[in-house]
């Protein structure tokens, strides 16, 4: 058995390797893509001298590895370069965008869990019952419908027909909490409901396994009622795959939220990334790539730690 410290060191080493690989790839992007970023930025009338100077400014004239290490060095000092589109510091852009995407992600997960946990509990307690059959059909319907279709439907229903909620736009929480939540609701539902379908199926299956175990029969023989049994005894050992799903979701939410953020005009990392890609704004693309990789690594670490609290056997190396 390895000591906890060695285990942690190995994990940290792996995480560092992943981040380095992502950084190198990100910095190599301008070389890999067709066309010159300098021409894209300066226009076709640019002189060769201007282009050379521009490429030197981006570090394109140098070895990719050397450029990567310079970039990492600068990044560690809080400098991610400047946007080619508007000259703003990339760090400032990210600082404005990350909280928005994070808020949207957390809200979507809350929506997904609020739907999935109760539905899965009732479904698993009476498999084949009314709730279970409706939930199963509903889950597969949700999974089959693309997220943006749901988003458009929600916009049409709540914003256009009922005029209850704003269709697009964003108000920061610090400015007006109520308006912030009103703008948050539709994108959070659009992101969260398809996830709820996945969560429900996963948790239901896991709960069925747990409920078949002898310790559940033992708890019932001591007079434990259904609600207590499900919430206090079965939910926790069944929730590990759900934690994994949410952890993976932190990484993929960036991709998924590009669509949803664009649809609802939410000024998050997703819209920043799609704008940067369209405008060949390499410093921004590179920063978004590395920052989301850091997010994935941190999420994986958090999932690992959460596993240990949820199942004491893991902490003891019994599983």
């Amino acid at each position: 058995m390895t000591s906890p410290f060695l285990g942690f060191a190995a994990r940290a080493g792996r995480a560092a390797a992943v981040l380095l690989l992502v950084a190198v790839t990100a910095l190599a992007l301008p070389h890999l893509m067709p066309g010159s970023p300098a021409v894209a930025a300066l226009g076709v009338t640019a002189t060769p001298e201007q282009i050379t100077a521009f490429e030197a400014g981006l570090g394109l004239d140098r070895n990719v590895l050397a450029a990567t290490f310079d970039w990492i060095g600068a990044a560690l000092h809080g400098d991610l370069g400047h946007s080619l589109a508007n000259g703003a510091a990339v760090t400032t852009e990210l600082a404005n965008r990350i909280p928005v995407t994070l808020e949207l992600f957390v809200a979507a997960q809350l929506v997904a869990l609020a739907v999935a946990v109760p539905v899965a509990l009732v479904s698993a307690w009476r498999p084949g019952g009314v709730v279970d059959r409706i939930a199963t059909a509903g889950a597969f319907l949700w999974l089959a419908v693309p997220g943006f279709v749901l988003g458009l439907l929600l916009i049409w229903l709540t914003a256009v027909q009922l005029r209850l909620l704003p269709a697009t736009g964003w108000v920061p929480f610090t400015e007006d909490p109520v308006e912030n939540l009103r703008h948050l609701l539709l994108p959070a539902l659009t992101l969260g409901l398809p996830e709820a379908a996945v969560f429900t199926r996963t948790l239901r299956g896991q709960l069925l396994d747990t409920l078949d175990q002898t310790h559940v029969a033992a708890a019932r023989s001591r007079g434990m009622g259904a609600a207590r049994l499900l919430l206090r005894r079965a939910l926790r050992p069944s929730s590990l795959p759900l934690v994994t799903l949410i952890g993976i979701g932190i990484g993929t939410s960036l991709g998924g939220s590009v669509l949803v953020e664009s649809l609802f005009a939410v000024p998050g990392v997703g819209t920043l990334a799609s704008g940067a890609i369209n405008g060949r704004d390499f410093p921004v693309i590179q920063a978004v790539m590395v920052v989301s990789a850091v997010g994935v690594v941190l999420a994986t670490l958090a999932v690992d730690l959460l596993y240990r609290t949820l199942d004491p056997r893991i902490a003891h190396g019994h599983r």
Partner: protein
Amino acid sequence: MTTPVLDVRSLNTAIHAPDGRRLHILHDVDLHIDAGECLGVVGESGSGKSVLARTVLGVHARTVRAESTGQVLLNGEDLLTAAPARRAELLGTGIAMVHQDPMTSLNPVVRIADQVTESLTNRRRMPRRERLRTAAALLAAVDVPDPARRARGYPHELSGGLRQRVGIAAALAGDPVLLLADEPTTALDVTVQRTVLDLLDRHRATRGLATLLITHDIGLLYGRARRIAVMYGGRVVETGPTEEVTERPAHPYTAALLRSVPRVTGPLRRELPAIPGSPPDLSRPVEGCPFAPRCDRAGSVCATVAPPVRAAGPAHTASCHFPLTAEAAPASPTSLERTP
């Protein structure tokens, strides 16, 4: 005569399996246990002994529906006709169960203190400190070393024998009058078996617990169970005081079961006699005696007529057309046609 703690009268139980089949498991089961008494129920897999325990407890597997007729009297109160709320109230506090496999019957992610005190906390809120204190006392009563520390821990930190002690502590927590022990030592090492059985014996004696000890190992009941009920095909085929049944078995099945117990004395190399064939298929109704196809004494009557319950000695009965003991021999054995 005092009322027995558990009095089961002509209990018939059918199980509706998830696949839609209806299995008639228990047939006219009669048994009783007095306070402080241990009744050993012995039989091979599929004899219905676990279904008997679950029917008495009133908790079946989640996916099956059980249907029972007859009476299950706990201190004179019929549990089969009791309201669901009353049955739920008795779980853990009136009737408690010790499960077979301590490796799977404890929840791996719930602290031992919380599991041991379940019978109490299902009824009333109990602050954490009180739970820990109560659990430590219960664990101490079942000889778990360092009980206060163990109460705060998790099941995976314990050996199989200690886990079964935790299971027993959880069963005793609600101060039940009837303890159902379903093969409590089958999953344990032989050396640990004895200490766990001794522990059950001690609590039976000091608390006056009526104990139903289910086992497939008839040898385990010597000196522990006052009486034995032998089950076969969902029926009690023989019952009586332990010495009576083990020394003068009347039913051929009991005799065969006793022959298959390995002995410490005698020749070293010898084949252990096994009972040929396998237990009856429960999905099909049995006419006559369920053991007839495997019985070396069976006559043609055995295949068609269910054997009556006959006296085989003092408080000793057996259901057999051709019992082994003299007292139980039918009045005129020649009157029944018997094939060689």
